[in-house]
């Protein structure tokens, strides 16, 4: 019984991490119907950025994260404004193929710059510490923090969307980009801001990816797939739904791993496929999409 509870708890916490992977993806799709196939690779790139700052500039990983956050925002802004905005339009091929090419470029650039060795973000002893919940169940501090971070991020993004001027502009643009221009919203700029936000969230995800587990230049695509599964299971258009989706994937994976260690990732895929078959719109889809 404790074993089952422990498995599920670990799965929920893992789901928090997956929700962090997915939040940026969900945001971008909601606002500009763009799916960035390089999303996972950008998370990994952010992790390498922090690693480089931590190791070569000799600063603490948390400080590296604080520096990487605005840098990733800026990168997202520039990437969207000067490259990805040019792919937006009726045709689905350009954004898909350009971001696919981008994915290949990033992976190989990282390989070239950092070699294929697996790395970890050094965060000291806290990486190994855990909190005892009694009854023989313990949860890692970092997994707990990543789950808390996921909640904070989703909450924060929702606050941004529903209580700020920028959020209004983002929602208006996602509704009707032409009419948004009529009220003075520069859609090129808004899309870039949105991508900046998404990559800032990726930086958060990267911090927890790097400190909870190892990463290498090819880790990106798998993160993209988990993020995508979380978004679809949760339902397009809802960030809390994305969190729920992440938890479903996380729990499916830990349960699968419990049955057979090699079945972890496959179980996540199976859960995704089952939801896709039974509830194609996910659990919490927005009414209009």
């Amino acid at each position, binding site marked *: 019984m404790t074993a089952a509870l422990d498995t599920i708890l670990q799965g929920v916490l893992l789901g928090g991490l997956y929700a962090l992977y997915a939040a940026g993806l969900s945001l971008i799709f909601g606002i500009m119907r763009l*799916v960035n196939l390089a999303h996972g690779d950008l998370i990994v790139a952010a992790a390498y950025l922090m690693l480089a700052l931590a190791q070569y500039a000799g600063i603490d990983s948390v400080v590296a994260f604080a520096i990487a956050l605005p840098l990733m925002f800026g990168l997202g802004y520039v990437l969207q404004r000067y490259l990805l905005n040019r*792919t937006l339009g009726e045709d*689905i091929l350009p954004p898909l*193929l350009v971001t*696919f090419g981008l994915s*290949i*470029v990033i992976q*190989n650039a990282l390989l070239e710059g950092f070699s294929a060795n697996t790395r970890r973000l050094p965060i000291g002893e806290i990486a190994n510490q855990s909190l005892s919940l009694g009854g023989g169940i313990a949860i890692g501090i970092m997994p707990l923090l990543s789950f808390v971070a996921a909640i904070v991020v989703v909450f924060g993004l929702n606050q941004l969307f529903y209580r700020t001027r920028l959020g209004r502009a983002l929602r208006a643009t996602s509704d009707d980009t032409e009419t948004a221009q009529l009220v003075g919203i520069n859609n090129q700029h808004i899309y870039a801001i949105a991508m900046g936000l998404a990559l800032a969230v990726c930086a958060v995800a990267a911090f927890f990816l790097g400190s909870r587990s190892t990463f290498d230049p090819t880790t990106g695509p798998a993160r993209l797939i988990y993020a995508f599964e979380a978004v*679809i299971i949760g339902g397009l258009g809802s960030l809390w739904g994305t969190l729920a989706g992440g938890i479903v994937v996380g729990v499916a994976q830990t349960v699968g791993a419990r049955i057979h260690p090699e079945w972890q990732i496959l179980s996540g895929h199976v859960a995704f496929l089952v939801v*896709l078959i039974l509830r194609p719109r996910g659990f919490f889809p927005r009414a209009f999409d």
Partner: protein
Amino acid sequence: MADGASWRALAERYGIQIRLAALAIVVIVLILLPLLGNRALMQDLFFVFTMLALAQYWNLLAGYAGLVSVGQQAFVGLGAYALFAAALILGWDPLLGIVAGGVVAAVLALPTALVVFRLRGAYFAIGTWVAAEVFRLVLAQFKTTLGGGTGTSLGPDITNSMTGLPWIKETFDVRTPEARDIAVYWLALLLLAGTLALVYFLLRSRRGLALAAIRDSETAALSLGVDSFRTRLTIYVIAAFGTGLVGALIYLQKARVSPDAAFSVLDWTAYVIFIVVIGGIGTIEGPIVGAIVLYFLQDYLAHFGTWYLITLGALAAAVMLVAPRGLWGYFADRYDIQIFPLRRRL
């Protein structure tokens, strides 16, 4: 007297005859190529033919049916594993195993489609990737029969037992390894020819017209009675069948398979997409140009490893932004050429 205008007039009048004659010459030359005894050339052409065939199927899906898949490696892998299973477990002749590869891929494409067709656009793309991953992970579980994660090989007893090898050895007076090279080369040529013919006639048929309609405006097509789902499903299964055949052939030639190799996104999707994008989406000629370009790039730059791939990725992205119809599309538009004419005169 022999100025551009009169050449054009001649070309228009005898267009079909000229095309068929040229095609016949090319085909005959390619069939007789083994007479040159150049093994390296045959192996290079094997690569070009198989990649080109894969590209034609991807192009059929993406350029014509509007189904952008980044999961076609699923069918390469399934085809390869079907061949290995047929040969190793059932003791079938490898030639039959190749056919099994196509059939297995096509059969499994059906349930796959039923699931992934619930997704649209970019999400469909990632969905196909997930499907490929599922197949990869499942096959990696078959440890005793198919070698699990490390994979397995086809021993010489199997590869040398292929039908037709003795005849080739005698006719060309070569030893077994060379005979195998000739055999797989011809099979690749045959598959490619079949693929080009299939794609050409499919797109000229009513199905092809339906495809164009769906791609241009699904709602309009639906309102005219075009069954979008069935048309797309048919194309998806056909593409899976072809991809499975090619996958089986590729791995027959390699004689060694592993889940990571057979289901590799880089080898069977990234390079394929590159071929189609650089060459030109939505035309039959485009991938031909793209395959040739890839071949030369591979030949000269592959040893640069990561930089080669960075260049390819950046080039594909750049072409998509600057010349979205690829190299062939750019020239064909300017000079109004079609080698495989698909447009109907309105």
